[in-house]
């Protein structure tokens, strides 16, 4: 069973939509944040001030940020690792790839995606 799954990410999506830091950060920027866990992928679309979990078959017309790792790489995040995705970037626990400008422009949202997954995992 992969560390990430659609139910978990749907709960994370609900948390992200209530997050004031995300609301401010996504207001003017569009991009896709794709999470890859083992062989599976999920994408948070950031468009027109909203963040939405979409199926990965959705055609990509905007800059894409990719965060990639194996289930064992994602698990510390699910367990609430202090520093979350930001620490995963600094300590190279996950691979961060794709459009660099989009990634840094939406860095606060990237961080909050990690926090929302951690919170959603606790709810579970």
């Amino acid at each position, binding site marked *: 069973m992969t560390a990430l799954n659609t139910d978990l990410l749907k709960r994370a999506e609900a948390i992200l939509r209530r997050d004031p830091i995300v609301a401010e*950060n996504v207001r003017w920027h569009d991009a896709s944040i794709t999470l890859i866990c083992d062989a599976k992928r999920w994408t948070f679309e950031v468009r027109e001030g909203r963040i939405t979990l979409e199926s990965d078959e959705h055609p990509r017309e905007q800059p894409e940020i990719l965060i990639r790792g194996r289930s064992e790489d994602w698990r510390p995040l699910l367990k609430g690792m*202090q*520093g*979350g995705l*930001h*620490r995963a970037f*600094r*300590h*190279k626990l996950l691979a*961060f790839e794709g459009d*660099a*400008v989009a*990634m*840094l*422009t939406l*860095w*606060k949202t990237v*961080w909050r995606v990690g926090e929302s997954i951690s919170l959603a995992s606790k709810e579970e």
Partner: protein
Amino acid sequence: MPYTNVDGVRLYYEDLFSEAPPLLLIHGAAQDTLSWRFNTEYLSRAFRVLVIDLPGHGKSQLPSGGAVDDLETYAVYAERFMSGLGISRYLVMGHSMAGGIAMHLALRHPERIVAAILVDGACYTSDTYGEETFELVSINPTDWFEVNFRTICSPQTAQERVEEIAFDVRRCAPEVAINDIRAYAALDLRDRAPDIRTLVVALHGEHDWSIPPELGKKTTELVAGPSRFVPIKGAGHFPHTETPESFHRAFQEALDGLGAELEAVRQP
């Protein structure tokens, strides 16, 4: 407001003048004098506290050559600042990257430094930064640093205090912030630390994953002179801001027994 000129650069400083032994406080990367706002009053009960904004930070001028990108250059500014005030012997306390500045000062002028006090600092880094990181972070250092600062606080720290720490970094010019982490990332004084005979104190938040406590402890083990390592419970990377009272107790504990040395540097 007090300003002085060091090598053509206008530096802002605060001087809580007294006849007590001088203690120079130096802020960490992308911060300024405000980072010591919860500490100066307490420290001034026993010290003449001097606080500076490093070049390009806070109210200090950016050097004409651009933002400083190495810690030894910062150390030169600090020592010339103190010499300019006529202070020849003093204690220096540096937070985070300024722990490295304090170590440079102890190496360059051991006759002037009574004690180098590192707050979540060390004489080397944990190798989490590489050129590819700088390239990426330089796109948007302000947001990256803000997230960094928020996440390296202890999970136990009050959200209100985390917001204040995040506010600190948003005031810093992006080119100064990125050069600060370049300067910090290049820090490695492990080979030279055994030459340090000055007292070295490491005060370290136990929840700091950015500069982990092991690095501060290892630094105190590497120096030849006396040293003390004091962990601070419940604090992350900013113990002086996150838990000022615990920080002050740790500071007091670390400097206990230094009475004679401190008396010797009392100002006339």
